């Protein structure tokens, strides 16, 4: 199996400038793979998948008859990012997160950005992620979004775009670490040949970020990870991160508010908790304040949080910035709060609540991607080019009925990376989700999760929609 027949076609290919001409950063890899004996690469691919299965890096697929466990498909051909490209992304992401954090602090306090006419008040107030209960909250250090996982894509020309920011509970970082572990076993020699930024230190950075939230007078703050439970699709990750950080993994039922503090039930009675990395959505956190039917939350926790007696990461209320309508204003936020031009561009976005935009969207449904403002994970989405006329009609009706709930973007021809398909390579579209930690400083973890649309021609990379993953190699230098 080699690259001699590999055709990058009319896309930006992360490995090849054109057929037979690899990019300089992967030339050594191409050479090495071309030299492997026939069948060797497939064998290594299968071995890598077997390791993931044995490690239980699986997710559940619920079909009507039986529930089955699968590993998230993993392709051993990595995505490679040069040091120079990475440096650019790092600066762009830092700028973006800084502005988003200032926006959150502002929106839950004075709302200057509304008063100054940059963002209409109704956009914020109609956002499902905007939580009036968080008005006036002061998270430690003024930081709201401690952990962010922005989704980036490249177009046909190789330009980078931000697709969404994911400031609530972004998942996937455990795959970054596990994929790397498997890759080191799969291609040990290549790791010696290339200078690849390590990923192992993520849990250490995460723990530091969380410890940073505890009051400074505590010698041994108690940090926990809060999970919805074993049936959550990201449970593996919650457990993995708690294990790697050496902290307790708790469920809502393990916690209780007693004497004005959040405490956990232990075999020796109650123990106070100081910092919670919560992987439970905002509205399930506290049935007394948000969704009264939530069984995942802890009654009274928001009161303790408001009193500054427990820290939450991310802060409740960050979801307002995940709203895809609010997303459209991020470049404006950067100009407004930082007085700078955005380094990373937003994908041009049509907001259906604006009459002119809506009219354009309805006319061009067959070439746009329409997204629901509040959904994530590839749900509530219309890929105009490949949709049936009936699907387009049904979306058109929804857009007219609830214009605030929809945005539309041009269909981007995402960049591609060679991927093993049977006994040869084919280009498959990818995106990239780097992880950004905001403690006192902002830290961008080198690499991130590369998701790949395994179906030929597909642009949807979500695991629930037939996506897989690849290791991401950021070259040092």
């Amino acid at each position, binding site marked *: 199996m080699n690259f001699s027949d590999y055709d990058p076609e009319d896309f930006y290919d992360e490995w090849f400038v054109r057929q037979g001409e690899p990019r300089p950063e992967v030339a050594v890899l191409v050479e090495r793979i071309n030299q492997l004996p026939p069948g060797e690469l497939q064998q290594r691919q299968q071995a890598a998948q077997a390791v993931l299965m044995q490690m239980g890096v699986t997710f559940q697929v619920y079909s009507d008859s039986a529930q089955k466990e699968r590993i998230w498909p993993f392709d051993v051909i990595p995505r490679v990012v040069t040091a120079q490209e990475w440096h650019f992304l790092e600066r762009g992401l830092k700028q973006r997160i800084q502005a988003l954090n200032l926006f959150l602090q502002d929106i839950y306090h004075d709302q200057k950005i509304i008063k100054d006419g940059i963002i209409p008040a109704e956009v914020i107030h109609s956002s499902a992620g905007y939580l009036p209960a968080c008005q006036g909250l002061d998270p430690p250090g003024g930081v709201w979004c401690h952990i962010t996982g922005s989704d980036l894509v490249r177009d046909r020309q190789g330009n980078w775009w931000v697709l969404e920011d994911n400031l609530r509970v972004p998942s996937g970082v455990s795959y970054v670490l596990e994929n790397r572990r498997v890759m080191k076993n799969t291609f040990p020699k290549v790791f010696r040949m290339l200078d690849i930024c390590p990923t192992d230190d993520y849990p250490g950075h995460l723990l530091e970020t969380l410890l940073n939230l505890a009051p400074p007078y505590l010698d041994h703050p*108690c940090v926990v990870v809060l999970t919805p439970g*074993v049936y959550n699709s990201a*449970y593996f990750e919650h457990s993995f991160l708690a*294990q790697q950080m050496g902290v307790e993994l708790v469920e809502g039922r*393990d916690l*209780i508010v007693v004497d004005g503090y959040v*405490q956990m039930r*232990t075999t*020796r*009675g109650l123990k106070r908790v100081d910092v919670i990395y919560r992987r439970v959505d905002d509205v399930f956190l506290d049935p007394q304040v948000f969704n009264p039917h939530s069984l995942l939350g802890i009654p009274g926790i928001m009161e303790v949080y408001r009193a500054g007696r427990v820290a939450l990461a991310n802060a409740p209320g960050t979801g307002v910035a995940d709203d895809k309508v609010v997303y459209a204003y991020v470049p404006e936020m950067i100009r407004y709060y930082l007085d700078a031009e955005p380094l990373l561009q937003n994908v041009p976005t049509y907001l259906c609540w604006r009459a002119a935009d809506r009219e354009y969207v309805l006319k061009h449904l067959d070439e746009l991607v329409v997204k629901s403002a509040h959904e994530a994970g590839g749900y509530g989405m219309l890929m105009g080019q490949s949709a049936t006329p009936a699907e387009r009609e049904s979306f058109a009706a929804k857009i007219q009925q609830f214009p605030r709930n929809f945005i539309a973007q041009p269909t981007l021809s995402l960049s591609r990376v060679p991927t093993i398909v049977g006994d040869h390579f084919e280009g498959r579209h990818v995106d990239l989700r780097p992880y950004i930690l905001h403690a006192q400083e902002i830290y961008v973890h080198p690499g991130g999760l590369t998701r790949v649309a395994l179906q030929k021609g597909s642009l949807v990379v979500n695991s629930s929609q037939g996506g897989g993953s690849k290791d991401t190699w950021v070259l040092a230098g």
Partner: protein
Amino acid sequence: MLSRVANSVYWLNRYIERAENVARFVDVNLHLILDLPDQSMAQWEPLVVVTGDLALFQEKYGSPTQEQVIQFLTFDDHYPNSIVSCLYTARENARSVREIISSEMWQEVNSFYWLVQRAAEHSQEVDLNQFFQEVKLASHRFAGVMDATMSHNEAWHFGQMGRLLERADKTTRIVDVKYYVLLPSVQDVGTTLDEIQWIALLKSASAYEMYRKRGRHLITPRQVAEFLILDREFPRSVQFCLRQMQHSLYRITGTEWNHWNMGVERSLGRLCADLEYMTIDEMIQQGLHEFLDHLQQEFNRLDDAIFKTFFAVNLDPVRHGVS
């Protein structure tokens, strides 16, 4: 540590141990049958009787045949104590405490689970003798990996308690199998067949060689029962399991040895003392089956006391930082 976590580690170990012992039960019967002069004498009902789930079995299968009993105890995913179900539950418990146990332990549970799943999917073609052997080995591997890769901390001791209590309970049931198998053929007592059956029984508890090494040349019911219930050195004997369990309990509570602060310490201590000072003849006098039944009830009470003391909601606040 979290009560929920302690509870899960405890049950993770109980279920792994349970799967192993079910394999032992069924395996010994398969071997016994091979030695029978007449295959029609084969008995499968006693196996279901000693599990305590006869009613459940009859409801679903009617009268017991070899295939049905093996299916029930091994592969029936609706029966909560079948090997398949034990592994499913063990794995779910392990999944909920993955960050507490070592990665190696998780991998063992996971491989064990897939071993059993694969067998269940092809239950018609499975070589049962080999399968039960693999189940026993997988359980030993898990215990060994746990011993060698996990700190012997509070969670580990909860795991030990679960495993030892389960093992003690199942050893009483293994002894009880023989009691039931014997019933319809009292005239066989003391015959070669009887001795073969007792040897099979010892083997099912992996006790045959150790029994011989204790210098007991004869295989008598009295001495086999004594060995499996009262031996101080054999790791599957009831007495040994309870002693080890007591050790783990005191490591968890931090109570001084030979003292007791809470009910569960007292119950376990009293049970240990009973076994310490009782002779096998006294047990046989009051009826071995009745005595084993009494032990099993004591084990249930112990399990309940552990639950109430450590796992159930506990609202007494303790000071922060005190471990």
